[in-house]
């Protein structure tokens, strides 16, 4: 991770002996400036994370919150042998509902990120071209991004409504479906509904990141390709894609991390649907709705570990410049 950028971007504090008092004073005030921010981060992130991990090893319940005891790994995996000789397994790691939610989340993340990248690339290429009305298009694509997730979930559940939804009416009139579909409730279509809304809402973000990458490509490369008579498709595969790939990689991993912790959209668009329940929804329900606080904490910890591994991969792949830039 320590690359050349680190050495170049450290501000040159030219410190002749005369200035060392000044340097020391600056370092002291730097720590003074940082302390409030660090204290808040510890209070809001570090400490609660440790407590969540701790609760995962206890039998805490909401009913009697303060009286709990350490029970080891029982929330994760417990093997009990009955007198009859039968062996019972329990815990998150053998809970089919947990693995179901892992599968739902991973499937959701892979499909949504794929389509968001695909559509994001198309829209970014359009916005990278010069044409009349480009400003209008750029403003228009910001609208889905600006709409709160809960609002877009409600808007779409109205459009996807089984009785009165405009999407059923249009599809019926076009002859694509033959009877009205309960998009958000039926087991076959709930995940599709979640995917459609998420792709609609998040493609703009992907577009902006890809567009920023596209605009870094010097235009004379395109001019050279044009003079050499290279076709547009070949230019895309041979010039644009390789050059935009670093920006694309960062955007994809970033989106994937976000998709893996999805909660709001699924919770509001398809409530109580086993086909769409994500890891976050599983953990939240166990924590507060099913009164299995400790069990939910164990699930939260597993979610954290999974995302931490992916974050480490991201830092390694993205070669993030730790001096404060990217």
């Amino acid at each position, binding site marked *: 991770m320590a690359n050349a950028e680190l050495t170049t971007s450290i501000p040159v504090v030219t410190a002749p002996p005369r200035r060392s008092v000044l340097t020391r004073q600056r370092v002291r005030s730097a720590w003074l400036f940082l302390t409030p921010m*660090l204290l808040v981060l510890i209070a809001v992130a570090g400490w609660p994370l440790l407590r969540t991990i701790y609760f995962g090893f206890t039998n805490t319940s909401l009913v009697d919150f303060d009286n709990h005891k350490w029970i080891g790994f029982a929330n994760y995996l417990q093997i009990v042998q009955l007198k009859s000789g039968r062996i019972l397994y329990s815990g998150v790691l053998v809970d089919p509902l947990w693995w179901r939610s892992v599968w739902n989340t991973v499937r959701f993340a892979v499909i949504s990120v794929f389509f968001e990248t695909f559509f994001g690339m198309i829209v970014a290429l359009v916005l990278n071209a010069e044409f009349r009305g480009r400003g209008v298009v750029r403003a228009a694509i910001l609208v889905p991004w*600006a709409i709160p997730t809960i609002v877009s979930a409600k808007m779409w559940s109205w459009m996807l409504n089984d009785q009165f939804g405009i999407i059923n009416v249009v599809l019926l009139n076009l002859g694509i479906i033959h009877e009205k579909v309960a998009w958000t409730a039926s087991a076959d279509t709930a995940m599709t509904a979640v995917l459609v809304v998420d792709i609609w809402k998040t493609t703009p973000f992907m577009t902006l990141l890809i567009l920023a990458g596209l605009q870094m490509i010097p235009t004379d490369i395109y001019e050279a390709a044009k003079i050499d008579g290279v076709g547009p498709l070949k230019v895309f595969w041979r010039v644009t894609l390789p050059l935009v790939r670093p920006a694309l990689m960062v955007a994809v991993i970033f989106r994937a991390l976000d998709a893996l912790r999805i909660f709001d959209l699924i919770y509001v668009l398809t409530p109580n649907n086993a086909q769409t329940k994500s890891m976050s929804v599983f953990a939240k329900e166990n924590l507060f709705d099913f009164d299995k606080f400790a069990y939910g904490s164990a699930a939260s910890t597993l979610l954290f570990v999974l995302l931490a591994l992916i974050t480490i991969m991201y*830092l390694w792949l993205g070669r993030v410049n730790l001096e404060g830039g990217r």
Partner: protein
Amino acid sequence: MTAAKLIRGTLFYLLVAVIVFISVFPFYYAIITSLKTGTALFGTDLWPQVISFTNYVLVFSSGSFPRNLLNSLFISSTVVVLSLLLGITAAYALARVAFKGRKVILFAILSVSMFPQLAVLAGLFELVRATHLINTPFALIFSYMIFTLPFTVWVLTTFVRDLPMEIEEAAIVDGATPWNIIIKVFMPLMWPALVTTGLLAFIGAWNEFLFALTFTSNNDQRTVPVAIALLGGASDFEIPWGQIMAASVIVTVPLVVLVLIFQRKIISGLTAGGVKG
């Protein structure tokens, strides 16, 4: 040759039209729905026969929606002010002063920005419960720092680092203290970055759902996303779709207007920070 060019141009603008339509139509349809009442609500007219503001009147006069709006406004503004205050000083220290441990701190900040909210939910619940902040706006103001603060510090650090060294050196020669350098030298130059990060922090806090759902328990303490999510009827047929859409339009229009006014700043902030607002 020209025919091919014409077809290409037409196809291009067709694609542009599709992109604009897909982006804007759902929100347009929400606005239209919010202006319908009675049986018209259940038709799919793309333009209401009769424009009615009944849903808006109902949203504001019944229930706790006005209160929820004020809650959201108070919480989001406070979150912005606090994260900017903490962010500016931290960014100056991280961008301009070479000291041991800077890399570790930047790494920690970046890690926190990747945290899934669920990973801290149980611990935060214990904390706000023990401090009796639960079911007050302060529980939310506090917990929202987890996503606004890392982002603010990160973007502001990037921004300060790119300011020329000379402006500060002159002030140092004049004997200015670090605090005065921040206030007198950097603040005036940082306005663009402050507007961007402040706006993104505001949007993040305004839209937040999970903490707001978990840490509030009665209607008067809720923020608008939770209020909208919980607006419902006894059965599927009694769901007040008109009112839900009216409330949705009310909370979304200010955001859309802000985003469109500041679109260039927001785009640069999003891509510089790479953090979703």
